[in-house]
């Protein structure tokens, strides 16, 4: 029986091919939707480009002058949106911030109609945050060739720029990824940041990657994503070089996934005492905002191992890099 185009009985392992849509025929970044599917070279180039921005004496660059970037936020966000806005402005792009409440965008046709309207205003790039996984892919599949899409977080799927700024921060402190042992702690079930970090760390060849959480907060099949699974913190952070704490959403804390904040902190909260189990020069990261006393003690958040504020400032350079690399010319070719 021959099959045309569609495979009836797929035999390949569970891998996605977002790379097809994320890269142009020359292998350059076209959209930045997910870490999964991007080759190491592209990730490294993002880091190198970000580094060139941070190393520069200049604060402002003319790279995207004449280009217009729309921040399309279907979920409330202050920090991520601000850093994207700042990144765009430092590249001399014009920026449009659009915040859409979930209620006015529950229908797909509204979303498509909105895109058509914005395209008519000659927007060159959409930075999209949306509560539904796959939203950035959906939008990327519906924009014309000269428009590119940056995913600023889609549902529980990916948040690739956050992961890249984390990689950037790790590289500043510990540049040799293959020698590193990294632990990601917390709500992996709902975390788009964690999924992006896992793909990024594995693509960059990290030595060992652990995830630590109670079973209620571990997605089914996560062990197939190239991680070692631990359910107890003390065991999991032994001798690690990097600890990435994840944010626990308040609505998940009571009863549904964990019995109480108190119990969570007792089992998974990062304290100075626990930190001593890791390598002496361990760095502690958190995508913010921190729930102090739930995910970590203030002593850890503000302590000498914490690189949390560096993450924030690195966020701008990394987003500048992604924007500069993905921006297209009117003919659809890469503008970088």
């Amino acid at each position: 029986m021959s099959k045309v185009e569609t495979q009836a009985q797929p035999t390949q392992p569970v891998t996605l091919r977002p790379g097809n849509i994320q890269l142009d025929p020359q292998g350059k970044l076209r959209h930045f939707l997910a870490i999964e599917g991007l080759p190491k070279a592209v990730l490294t180039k993002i880091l190198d480009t970000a580094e060139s921005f941070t190393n520069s004496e200049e604060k402002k660059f003319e790279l995207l002058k004449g280009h217009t970037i729309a921040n399309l936020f279907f979920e409330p966000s202050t920090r991520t949106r601000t850093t994207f806005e700042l990144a765009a402005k430092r590249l001399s792009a014009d920026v449009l911030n659009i915040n859409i409440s979930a209620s006015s965008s529950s229908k797909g046709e509204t979303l498509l109609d909105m895109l058509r309207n914005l395209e008519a205003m000659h927007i060159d790039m959409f930075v999209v945050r949306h509560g539904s996984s796959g939203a950035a892919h959906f939008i990327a599949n519906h924009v014309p060739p000269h428009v590119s899409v940056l995913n600023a977080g889609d549902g529980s799927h990916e948040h690739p720029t956050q992961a890249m700024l984390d990689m950037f921060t790790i590289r500043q402190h510990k540049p040799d990824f293959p020698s590193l042992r990294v632990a990601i702690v917390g709500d992996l079930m709902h975390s788009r940041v964690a999924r992006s970090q896992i793909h990024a760390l594995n693509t960059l060849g990290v030595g060992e990657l652990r995830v630590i959480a109670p079973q209620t907060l571990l997605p089914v099949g996560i062990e197939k994503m190239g991680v070692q699974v631990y359910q107890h913190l003390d065991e999991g952070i032994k001798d690690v070089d990097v600890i990435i704490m994840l944010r626990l959403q308040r609505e998940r804390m009571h009863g549904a996934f964990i019995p109480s904040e108190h119990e969570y902190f007792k089992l998974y909260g990062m304290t100075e005492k626990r930190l001593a189990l890791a390598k002496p020069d361990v760095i502690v990261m958190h995508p913010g905002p921190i729930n102090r006393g739930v995910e970590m003690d203030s002593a850890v958040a503000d302590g000498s191992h914490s690189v949390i504020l560096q993450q924030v400032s690195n966020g701008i350079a990394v987003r500048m890099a992604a924007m500069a690399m993905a921006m297209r010319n009117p003919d659809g070719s890469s503008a970088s």
Partner: protein
Amino acid sequence: MSRIHIKGGRLIDPANDIDAITDLWIADGKVQAIGHAPDGFSADETINAEQLIVCPGLIDLSARIREPGQAHKATIASETAAAASAGITTLVCPPDTQPVIDSAAIVELIHLKARQANLSRLHMLGALTCNLDGELISQMLSLKNAGVVGMSNANKPVPNSLILRRAFEYACTHDLTVFIRPDDDGLSNTGCVHEGALASRLGLPGIPEAAETVAVARHLELIEQTGVKAHFSQLSTARAANMIARARHDGLKVTADVAVHHLYLTDIDIRDYNSACHLIPPLRSERDRDGLRDAVKRGVIDAICSDHQPHEPDAKQAPFPDTEPGLSGLDTLLPLVKRLADEKLLSLSEAIDRVTRSPANILGLEQGHLSVGAIADICILDPDMNWVVNSDNLNSAGHNTPFIGWEMHGRATRTLVNGQLIFSSDHD
């Protein structure tokens, strides 16, 4: 009524164990003779069926026709026409129309519209509970008198086991078969895909296998206790099929069907958020697909349906979780069932049985076979017609099918209901 002679076709009638090149003579809506012309029969029309297969018309155990309530998706006229063009002579519509099929008036309305369309037959399942709310048992007697062929709560589980028990008992009283799409609401939660590695990667909320198996176990217990006639609809997991097999082995008389796409597709087909594969129950693992195929082969799964759910294009144009679940399946039911024979999973006769005699038995209908004297609901198909599924050759109002681009082998060329030609292909 016209008198028809179907000439030279390969008659496949699983109920009578016939697979032979022979002629059929039809008059007064019934099969008058097979093999030898009745004395003095003069046909008004002779259909040349050489190189074609003649079999009972297909009976689809689950097809949403969207009317009343969602005529922007499809109508009784559009979907009975699509069914006719696909060799399907009987459709069974679940009760989740808008309004719900929980009163005789709605049954009569739908019957009226189907009569006006005058194409494939349309049967209904009545709501097991009022408005499918799972709180009050429905007026089963008046629904039965209005003509429903069974009861169902469609895709809405009845959470309270006491109410479920009473609904089963009351269905028993009226000798009504209950159709169960097994689902545990709590475990399914907000899920939209099979729970597994792929769902976790895509960040999509998963529906665990246990959402189906827990519900099968719970229903089996109450079926055994109440003695209700029960049928499990659209199984999606291999484990559920095994549970049915065990229950049958232990002497419980239950039947089951599967939607044909679950015999071909898996969650991997969702890949980059392909909303055409957003289905409930979800596409599951390869192990499940293979287990379901095996259950069909062993006869644990008695029947195959389309689980037809046509949508307007906008319903699938959104980020994956925000799209509406379901696929349009009438056009592809026959070729996909035939393909099971092409792939040697079943004999052609067995494959046809799963969509003719077997569903007829589950429904307690007279159709599904072509004995002399039987109602002449007939499908004539060209087994060698190759066609590639695309929007232009789908007859359903809904073009939401993940089989776009698939090459199919076989298509209906003529369809008869009650001895009348209701569809004739322009391809021959």
